[in-house]
């Protein structure tokens, strides 16, 4: 078995002393965390270590000795060798670095019963040793993916060796707290932070954030109580609010703010990242919204927009009227069932008439409404977009109505035709068993069925044409709304903080590690450099995407086409109720 020693880079040129670290359980590997310099008092070392152990919950121990020969320190070797009797350990590592040489020499001294097994190694056979150098700061700060606790299923499995190394280094943060210039009884070499210039500002923000969070929470609770008033819970109000995307976005943002302002400290990495992501994306959202407002309310753009909007709606209605007139004639040279065609056309024309009068009634107020609605953008760009989506939905309400009528009629026909076709073949749908059974019909049943079948079949093209035209119109509206929903969802769920972290501090989010062979001298142990392999951008997105009401197509394209063909109603791509992670 090969012995692996994880050695911090900063201890490469430390003075001689004791190696402090941890033997990884079940693995043939040791993590060196620090070097305690000579001279020291063994009792103090032991006390110091037990204190640290209580703080960090890492089984710290003295691993062995480290010697770095310097002038005037002869006889050090033998002294260090004797130290093993003072610190009783099963194994005693003796690392030494020759003057001017890059590689280390390693000796493993076994004590007690264990020496018999690993006798080959103990005799100073340095071939079975790998030195893995690591950067203590990066390893301490980085988060190995997948994070712990994230996947509950494999939480029971034994953590892998690398994960243990990362854990050990991250948990022994108290060990690194002692400063180089501290005047304690022990001199220790390990990673030192370069200084804390910005720490005062950080502290101040921390202090200030507590009352701010409390205030936010209070406001939020007020808001929720307001929402709970029974007036808002009545059926029509609730139905309307669940349909309007602005309201959905509002509840969604409230949720976000509640998460961010909760006074509890984030328990693990994922939760912390989630909070940070929400926080950053909220700010970016608001900033974009303010930018939009500053553009919109300058140079009288609102009134110009309103002036465009009303004629546009009018124009759409006119076009629709013409389309209906065309359909009532002989569209594309097709010969329709005249009576049904006229009935359907008149019906729809009346609707458009209603619609036009409605628009004209509204037109004086449109500018006002737009002005107030535009203010909502100060809550964020997402709100502005949601409002836009709602406006589009309201302005294309007539198309939606036409579509629903057409679809229902068409659906009924298809349904009737399919069941009559079964009757034709002497079959019937067995509701209890959910399958098609054979069945013998009476003569008059067959006669009536055949008659109905013929009538339905000959009326189908007329209905299908109306259905087709209005479905196409509806699809355009749905597509537009879908694009808006997609962009809103993108802003809501994009993990900006994680992306920034990955860009500026790649080592913070580690996918794994990579090794580089440092030096190879025959007869000397192998030296590897362990570097952190940063997470790919795609995986950052995958890990840290804020869970949202996903707006991806609910069903595949094939299913959508099938729905269209059968005449089932289609809605914008919005899933309600289910949160997807």
């Amino acid at each position, binding site marked *: 078995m090969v012995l692996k020693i994880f050695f911090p880079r900063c201890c490469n040129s430390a003075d001689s002393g004791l190696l402090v670290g941890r033997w990884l359980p079940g693995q043939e590997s040791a993590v060196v965390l620090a070097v305690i310099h000579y001279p020291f008092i063994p009792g103090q070392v032991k006390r110091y270590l037990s204190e640290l152990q209580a703080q960090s919950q890492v089984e710290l121990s003295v691993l062995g000795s480290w010697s770095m020969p310097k002038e005037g320190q002869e006889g050090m070797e033998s002294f260090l060798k004797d130290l093993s009797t003072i610190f009783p350990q099963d194994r005693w590592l003796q690392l030494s670095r020759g003057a001017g040489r890059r590689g280390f020499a390693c000796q493993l001294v076994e004590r007690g019963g264990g020496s018999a097994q690993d006798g080959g190694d103990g005799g100073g056979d340095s071939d079975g040793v790998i030195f893995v150098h690591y950067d203590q700061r990066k390893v301490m700060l980085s988060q190995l993916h997948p994070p712990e606790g994230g996947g509950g299923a494999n939480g029971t499995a034994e953590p892998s060796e690398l994960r243990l190394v990362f854990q050990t280094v991250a948990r022994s943060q108290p060990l690194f707290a002692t400063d180089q210039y501290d005047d304690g009884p022990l001199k220790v070499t390990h990673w030192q932070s370069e200084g804390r210039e910005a720490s005062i500002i950080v502290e101040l923000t921390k202090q200030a954030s507590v009352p701010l969070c409390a205030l936010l929470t209070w406001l939020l609770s007020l808001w929720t109580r307001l929402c709970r008033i029974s007036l808002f819970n009545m059926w029509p109000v609730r139905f309307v609010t669940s349909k309007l995307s602005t309201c959905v976005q509002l509840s969604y943002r409230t949720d976000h703010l509640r998460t961010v302002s909760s006074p509890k400290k984030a328990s693990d990495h994922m939760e912390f990242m989630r909070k940070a992501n929400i926080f950053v994306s909220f700010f970016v959202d608001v900033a974009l919204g303010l930018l939009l407002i500053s553009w919109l309310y300058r140079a009288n753009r609102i009134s110009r927009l309103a002036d465009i909007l009303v004629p546009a709606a009018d124009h759409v209605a006119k076009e629709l009227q013409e389309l209906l007139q065309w359909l009532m004639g002989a569209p594309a040279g097709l010969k329709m069932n005249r009576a049904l065609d006229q009935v359907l056309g008149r019906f729809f024309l009346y609707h458009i008439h209603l619609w036009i009068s409605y628009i004209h009634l509204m037109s004086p107020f449109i500018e006002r409404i737009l002005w107030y609605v535009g203010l909502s953008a100060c809550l964020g760009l997402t709100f502005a977009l949601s409002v836009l989506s709602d406006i589009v939905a309201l302005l294309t309400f007539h198309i939606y109505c036409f579509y629903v009528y057409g679809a229902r009629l068409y659906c009924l026909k298809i349904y009737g035709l399919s069941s009559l076709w079964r009757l034709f073949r002497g079959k019937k749908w067995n509701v209890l068993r959910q399958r*098609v*059974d054979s069945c013998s019909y009476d003569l008059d049943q067959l006669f009536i069925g055949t008659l109905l079948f013929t009538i339905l079949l000959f009326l189908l093209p007329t209905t299908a044409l109306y259905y087709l035209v209005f479905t196409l119109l509806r699809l355009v509206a749905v597509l537009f709304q879908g694009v808006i929903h997609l962009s809103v969802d993108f802003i809501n769920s994009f993990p900006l903080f994680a992306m920034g972290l990955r860009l500026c501090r790649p080592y913070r989010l580690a996918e794994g590690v990579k090794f580089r062979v440092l030096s190879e001298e025959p007869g000397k142990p192998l030296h590897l450099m362990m570097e952190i392999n940063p997470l790919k951008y795609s995986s950052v997105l995958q890990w840290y995407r804020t869970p949202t009401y996903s707006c991806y197509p609910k069903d595949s394209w094939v299913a959508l086409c099938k729905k269209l063909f059968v005449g089932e109603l289609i809605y914008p791509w919005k899933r309600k109720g289910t949160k997807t992670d």
Partner: protein
Amino acid sequence: MGQRKRAAIRDSLANQIMDGITLGHQDSPKHNICMVSDFFYPNMGGVESHIYQLSQCLIERGHKVIIVTHAYGNRKGIRYLTNALKVYYLPLQVMYNQSTATTCFHSLPLLRCVFVRERITVVHAHSSFSAMAHDSLFHAKTMGLNTVFTDHSLFGFADVSSVLTNKLLTVSLCDTSHIICVSYTSKENTVLRAALDPEIVSVIPNAVDPTDFTPDPSQRDDSKITIVVISRLVYRKGIDLLGGIIPELCLKYPQLHFLIGGEGPKRIVLEEVREKYQLHDRVRLLGALEHKDVRNVLIQGHIFLNTSLTEAFCMAIVEGASCGLQVVSTRVGGIPEVLPKELITLCEPTVSSLCEGLEMVIARQRAGTVPPPATIHSRVRTLYTWRNVAERTEKVYDRVAKETVQPLHRRLHRLQAHCGPVAGCIFAFIAVLDFLFLLLLQWLVPDSVIDLAVDASGPHALWKRSGNRKHSV
């Protein structure tokens, strides 16, 4: 003439020496055989088990055998079965009924790669329903390999689809080195359909593994009479007939039970019958059965019923007889040749005739005049064995290996002469295109660049020598 031959052969077909093959006793050379068919495990059926058992016996006799089929769902790539039988599941598009789509060309690159890297000498295609088999025959001839074809099914001559398939078969088989049929009826049928020289058509029947199908009378419930039906529930297997038989007999004999194994589109017919006549306790539908479970079902019954409408060689009735059951079957296709007269009751493929036959057997069963299962088993055991089939197939390979494959111009000539002026010309043109495509492929990826595969079976098998060094995933 066919009638006469059939009459002469009927009772001891299995022990006959194959016609068309002269027996030679020299130490036969070992072949590298590639079995190609669309139908293989995990699909279940007669062709599938035929290919598997034949391959196993050929491997036992020291040949190298590989199987090429199309990917079944998640099962794609290269797999190894028992005794290092290597199976290529090639990613080809399945069109209908587990048969791949064919464009005559698109399978050439993959098949060529397989043939070259495995150093194939004989390509053995199975089943005329398999487009992949025909494709591989076509490409193998283009590449100059010897070809053998086994036909497992019978066809009509009258309807349009049969005429078309028969034309295709004519083209496909007109320069195939040798054809194997599973019964004499099948041979007649194939010779007529594909306008072949009967000299190059041999008859090698299917077989069953008699050790898998041993009788066990203790499993039967003698207080009632159980009729077992095991087949795919499709039209060809006469499930509509079965649906007519069940109510009629169940009405007459209150202690009669049906045990039906298999799955298919016609299952609904049986379910409806069961519901209509309230026979839930007497007609059991077992659904799809695994091969290893078939025996456990068979031994529970007294009578084995086969209602096929067309059948080249019925393996199911041999399995039934091997388990010691009384066999009742329709008199269609090659079924009359399969079992000796005293082991089988043959009826016409009508409901009334089948009912009559069944009633007769039921009466005998009640009177106790049927021979005991062990006797039937011992008779059937020696009739059909895979070893025998493998030996005879090997002789076909030996004969084929001696023949030279026709060069392209002779092939074209033969296609034109044999398949009629229009179809012949079209297919000659396709053959030329195929050849050009092959040349293109040989230019793009020369044979020398293709790695030769490590043999898993055959004379140079790596597995036998060094144990389980190679892994398969």
